[in-house]
């Protein structure tokens, strides 16, 4: 990689009690690159993203964003300039149900950047249009929206502040295949095409192939395979092969009681 990495992870570790969730993660993400992390449920994918965001603090290792070490700084104590680089689409969309849709989208602008409400509403409607939602949706409450629409509003909220890095936590989970593909297309249009760096976690292989430049497979807290998205079928790694093809039999053993 020629350019300096946007996000640099070195030997990141995180444990909850006795359970070592991240067990030495090394990963560099170049500017404007889209990396997808795949892996089974409970393998630490979400924890990885939350450590980078500063919602959780890693136990050891190095996390650098644009060359600045943020490993042990929780989000609230970080330089606001760093927090402003991030956008995040949560798995459940995590919209604020006490606020109308437009205020959700404009939230970072009003609270974080102190933009006037009028200006922020204008920008929110603009951003809603980018994810294919009509201005009238802005006045609805999040509870009135379908799952797919909530995800789209979540996406609009994530990109409204013009972030440099966007995280996607299972963007297509729980959606029908068509809506999932709509979300994939939106992610490509809103993120990849604008040169935004993206880190996604998913176990939807179709989505991973579509939105990822590179794919990394996480298993038991380590990245066991990192490579170009188009090479995923020729990974030559039995773990990756099992996951990609969705087989119950293979080296990855599910913790099942028999």
């Amino acid at each position, binding site marked *: 990689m020629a350019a300096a990495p946007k996000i640099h992870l070195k030997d990141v570790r995180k444990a909850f009690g006795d359970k070592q969730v991240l067990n030495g993660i090394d990963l560099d993400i170049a500017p404007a690159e889209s990396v997808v992390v795949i892996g089974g449920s409970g393998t630490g994918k979400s924890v990885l993203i939350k450590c980078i*965001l500063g919602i959780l603090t890693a136990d050891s290792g190095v996390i650098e964003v644009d060359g600045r070490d943020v490993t042990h700084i929780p989000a609230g104590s970080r330089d606001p300039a760093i927090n402003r680089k991030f956008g995040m689409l949560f798995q459940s969309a995590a919209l604020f149900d006490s606020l109308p849709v437009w205020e959700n989208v404009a939230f970072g602008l009003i609270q974080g950047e102190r933009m006037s409400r009028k200006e922020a509403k204008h920008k929110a409607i603009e951003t809603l249009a980018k994810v294919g939602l009509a201005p009238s949706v802005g006045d609805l409450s999040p509870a009135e929206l379908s799952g797919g629409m909530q995800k789209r509003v979540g996406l609009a909220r994530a990109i409204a502040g013009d972030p440099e890095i966007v995280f996607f936590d299972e963007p297509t989970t729980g959606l029908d295949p068509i809506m999932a593909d709509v979300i994939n297309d939106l992610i490509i249009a809103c993120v990849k095409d604008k040169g935004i760096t993206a880190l996604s976690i998913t176990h939807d292989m179709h989505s991973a192939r579509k939105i990822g430049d590179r794919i990394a497979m996480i298993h038991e807290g380590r990245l066991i395979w990192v490579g170009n998205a188009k090479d995923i079928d020729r990974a030559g790694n039995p773990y990756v092969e099992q996951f990609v093809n969705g087989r119950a039999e293979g080296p990855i053993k599910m913790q099942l009681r028999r």
Partner: protein
Amino acid sequence: MNFLALIGRVVLGFLGHIGRLTIFAGTAVSHCVRPPLYPRLIVRQMIDIGYYSLPVVGLTAIFSGMVLALQSYTGFARFSAESAVANVVVLSMTRELGPVLAGLMVAGRIGASMAAEIGTMRVTEQIDALTTLSTNPFKYLVVPRLLAGLLMLPLLVLVADIIGVFGGYLVGVYKLGFNPGVYINSTVDFLEPLDVISGLVKAAVFGFLIALMGCYNGYYSKGGAQGVGAATTNAVVSASILILTSNYIITELFFAT
């Protein structure tokens, strides 16, 4: 051995709880005095806690005042001290029943809803979302509730005091046959500013405690619907216990000689 381990676990768990709560309260208070504050949210919470609690607190107060007058009259009649009814009503209301009953009612109404709201935000990742949108959840969620509780409870209690005394007046004059002027005179004559002030100080402390327990339990709730339910219960129970305990301590500070 197992038994000792159990005791140890309970004690350590309890101490951990106290420690977390102390750190939580310290962080919250430190955010109360550092900008930015959110006036819009503070006002919304004040309306929620103050205005919308008025009916409940008012009803509680009027019936407390009425029953106080009735009970003390029948009691005092045994040693011909009926004239003390007005004093008993006003002192009990301002010093004790106003703050404590209003506090307990608000703990049930507001403490529970705070814990449920913040707890739901926690389990649906809305609190994490706040963080990613450059907003400190303490400033956005906890500080407005703490400030509103601290400011509104004394006002509520002042209203409760007046309504409670009025309840006593109603029973005294229309049922027990006191002369209205005499009743009002003996209400005012023996009342000292400290009686009312101590009640208002109690109310401010109770308001802070209710909001603190609601926010704390909601903030650390986990595990979906069941976790939020447990947080709500804990918020109301712990706030009620703290109200009754701190009520004694404050009374001791004010009136013990």
